[in-house]
């Protein structure tokens, strides 16, 4: 039998533009799990889609992409249909975008069975229900009638997997299937994929930006950078002794929990805490009329010069907490004091807001939306200097340029609009804008989670430096325990709006007292070889 998937010297480009993929070669054998690792823009999604004969419109191809000997770059439509139906299936990144929102789960699962497997509706229904059971979903008969918006992301991804497995493929292509999900949900999905892959003896090509995840699932790894394979080999070798510079850099930048590197908390000297939160509550009314408790009874404090990591999954209330601290939300109950001044329990007046701005600033997650698209970065930062430091136009521009250089934005960028900057550069500008108000406390709301790992590492390094030089107090909101372990002396774990554990980061990470915290730590992907040791 010919090889399951064999890509040879495959290149793809658009007329008049540089290559998106150049000379990519890789193969996947039967029953083998292979990872394709790369950052955004590396071309990893293009490569996988090529295996199904899904090419972007107007693209030019060369080389070959063979599945069971069928070259998808030249195969006729009928052959491609046959390939998609009987040999290969794909699981996409975002199940919410990938499953038609106006059709039921049952419709999604049965349509291929009815359309071309020739099953009757009853047979198809029975097969689909069995498959849903198999991917670990409960109340499957009810599920069949439900619409995607009624399911959680994790459940939907299981539905997507069920849909892919229904066609009993020999090759399973996974395009970042867990990136849109929480850590604990991700762990379940990875477990399911591994189980099914081994039980069915499928070949699997797993795309991810996360080296840890790749190591936890795959025996072999290809590292892709700007459309070129820069390294491939056994997962362990690539991870432990990378050859290519890029891989080495990637391995170095990949965050991991290192308890011995957790920063120390400032010595307790009995001063007034910079941030003191007592029994804080926030509730929202949902469009359906239900009430959602986003944050319940939160009590903690943060000393000047300290660093606190707030960790939780989506819906844990961590962003609500961050937004309340900077007064973008008003608490329903409880007390919030910054620098000993208790916040009034109402939306702030303009003057109060300006005063608060000198105490606390925030950097948001999305680098593409957190800067005003129309304002050049030099002016954006200068505006803050004029407002807060009372500087004149010329002086403010000078201060802004100095600060921008400090955060790593060169003079050639001062007159650029945000669109001309990369994601990492935009976050640097956002940090500069926040610092221009000279705050004591800097809140980072998932400020690095939208960035590529290598960029994230650089921005984290910048934050670390700034903290030391400026004596900043940090409150870092994130879903990633590893990021916290590097930056924060203290840790606070949130689940469903409730603080389940708080204390010193090193202590919690080495000996978590709470079951949920333990689960968060255990859900982090572990390399296959580590697991075999354990």
């Amino acid at each position, binding site marked *: 039998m010919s090889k399951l998937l064999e890509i040879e010297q495959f290149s793809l480009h658009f007329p008049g533009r540089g290559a998106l993929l150049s000379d990519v070669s890789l193969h996947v054998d039967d029953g083998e799990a292979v990872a394709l690792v790369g950052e955004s823009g590396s071309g990893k999604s293009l490569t996988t889609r090529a295996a199904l004969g899904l090419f972007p419109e107007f693209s030019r191809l060369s080389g070959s992409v063979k599945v069971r000997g069928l070259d998808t770059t030249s195969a006729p439509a009928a052959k491609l249909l046959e390939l998609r139906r009987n040999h290969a299936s794909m699981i996409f990144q975002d199940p919410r975008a990938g499953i038609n929102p*106006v059709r039921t789960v049952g419709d999604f699962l049965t349509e291929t069975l009815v359309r*071309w497997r020739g099953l009757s509706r009853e047979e198809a229904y029975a097969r689909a229900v069995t498959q849903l059971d198999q991917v670990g979903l409960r109340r499957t008969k009810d599920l069949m009638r439900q619409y995607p918006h009624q399911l959680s992301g994790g459940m939907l991804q299981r539905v997507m997997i069920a849909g892919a497995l229904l066609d009993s493929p020999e090759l399973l292509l996974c395009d970042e299937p867990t990136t849109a999900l929480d850590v604990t949900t991700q762990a379940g999905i990875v477990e399911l994929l591994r189980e099914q892959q081994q039980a069915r003896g499928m070949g699997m090509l797993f795309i991810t930006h996360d080296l840890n995840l790749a190591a936890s699932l795959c025996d072999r790894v290809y590292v892709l950078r700007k459309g070129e394979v820069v390294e491939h080999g056994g997962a362990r070798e690539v991870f432990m002794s990378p050859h290519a510079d890029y891989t080495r850099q990637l391995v170095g930048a990949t965050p991991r929990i290192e308890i011995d590197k957790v920063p120390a908390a400032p010595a307790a000297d009995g001063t007034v805490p910079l941030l003191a939160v007592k029994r804080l509550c926030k509730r929202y009314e949902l469009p359906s009329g*239900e009430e959602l408790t986003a944050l319940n009874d939160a009590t903690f404090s943060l000393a000047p010069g300290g660093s606190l990591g707030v960790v939780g999954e989506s819906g844990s209330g961590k962003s609500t907490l961050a937004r309340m601290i900077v007064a973008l939300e008003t608490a329903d109950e409880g007390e919030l004091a910054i620098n000993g001044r208790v916040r009034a329990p109402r939306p702030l007046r303009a003057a109060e807001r300006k005063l608060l701005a000198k105490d606390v600033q925030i950097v948001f997650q999305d680098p593409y939306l957190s800067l005003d698209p129309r304002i050049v970065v030099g002016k954006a930062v200068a505006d803050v200097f004029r407002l807060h430091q009372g500087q004149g136009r010329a002086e403010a521009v000078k201060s802004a340029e100095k600060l921008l250089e400090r955060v790593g934005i060169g003079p050639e960028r001062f007159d650029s609009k945000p669109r001309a900057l990369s994601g990492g550069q935009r976050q640097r500008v956002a940090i500069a804008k926040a610092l221009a108000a000279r705050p004591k406390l800097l809140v980072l709301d998932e400020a690095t989670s939208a960035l590529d790992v290598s960029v994230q590492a650089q921005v984290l390094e910048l934050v670390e430096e700034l903290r030391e030089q400026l004596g900043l107090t940090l409150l870092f909101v994130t879903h990633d325990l590893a990021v916290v372990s590097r930056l924060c002396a203290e840790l606070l774990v949130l689940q469903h709006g*409730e603080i389940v554990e708080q204390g010193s980061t090193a202590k919690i990470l080495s000996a978590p007292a709470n079951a949920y915290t333990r689960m968060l730590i255990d859900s982090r992907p572990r390399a296959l070889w580590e697991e075999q040791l354990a």
Partner: protein
Amino acid sequence: MAVTELAAPPARPTPGRKKSPATSLIVLALRKVGTLLITLFFASLVVFFSRFVLPGDPARFLLRGRSPKPEALVEITKQFGLDKPPIEQYLTWVGGILHGDWGRSLTYRQSVSDVLLNRLPVTLELAALAAVFITVLGLAAGILASLNKGGWDRFILITVTAAGAIPPFVAAIALTALFAVQLGWFPSFGSGDEGLGRLWHLTLPALALGLTFIAFMARVTRSSMNEQLTREHVEVATSRGLKRSSVVFRHVLRNALGPILTVSGVLIAGLLVSSAIVEQTFGLTGIGQLLVQSIDRLDFAVVQAIVMIVVTAFVLANTIVDLIQPLIDPRIAAGTESR
């Protein structure tokens, strides 16, 4: 702070009473119908009290352009109840409408409802025929353009842009000049007899009336489908080995229906309003022409009636569209998506 010590509220986001989809649909429907009634009420206020905008003797206003003989003034005062307070006049007017009595026409010297009933069929037939043209031609052009990138798409887009800029009255003149005067294929005037003759007489007017809307429909269909074509769920469907036709019908067109439907609601109003111009041009005796003539002849009771009817039709059409939307997209009923 003592309050919170009594009992810790539930930690989980309280799910509360989960409403079943069916109930939320009914609630949604009731709310839409309620909005419809409120809108109609306020619209009737606007229509009725619009004539109070002008200061002066209301009787003389209603008799503009006619000889204000004392008898006539007395008669009009009695007929419209002008000696009563405005609120009472309004209540009488609305009460009459609810009983099918729209008042009396000054020009025709008969009840407005009789005049309207005589003329309504032509307008409805004209609008219906135009609607058929719009649905068939507009949808077809939009789908064709969306599925055939390149030559066809460009050709249709250019045609549609040009056609969309031809106002109904210009289209009416152009079609008359070409098909009626030069070629003599269609009549240029009148509404003809019942049946096929009527259809023959209405073809040119319906085309003139529908032209901009055909273009509009094609444009919306095209862009709505194009938007769906880039969605990931369409790619997923393709990756699962569905045939192109299945993908297009079950996933692209199906999901593109929402905006198309929304536009249809607006189109219905547009058709009724623009029919005034087309009917006037082609000499069709519908309510559109009646509206123009009544404005010309200062027959205000008829104007009020027609405006109210068109507004009602418009609001009703939009409400029906709003009620169909949640059936097309279940997320709307859940309140997570709005259109």
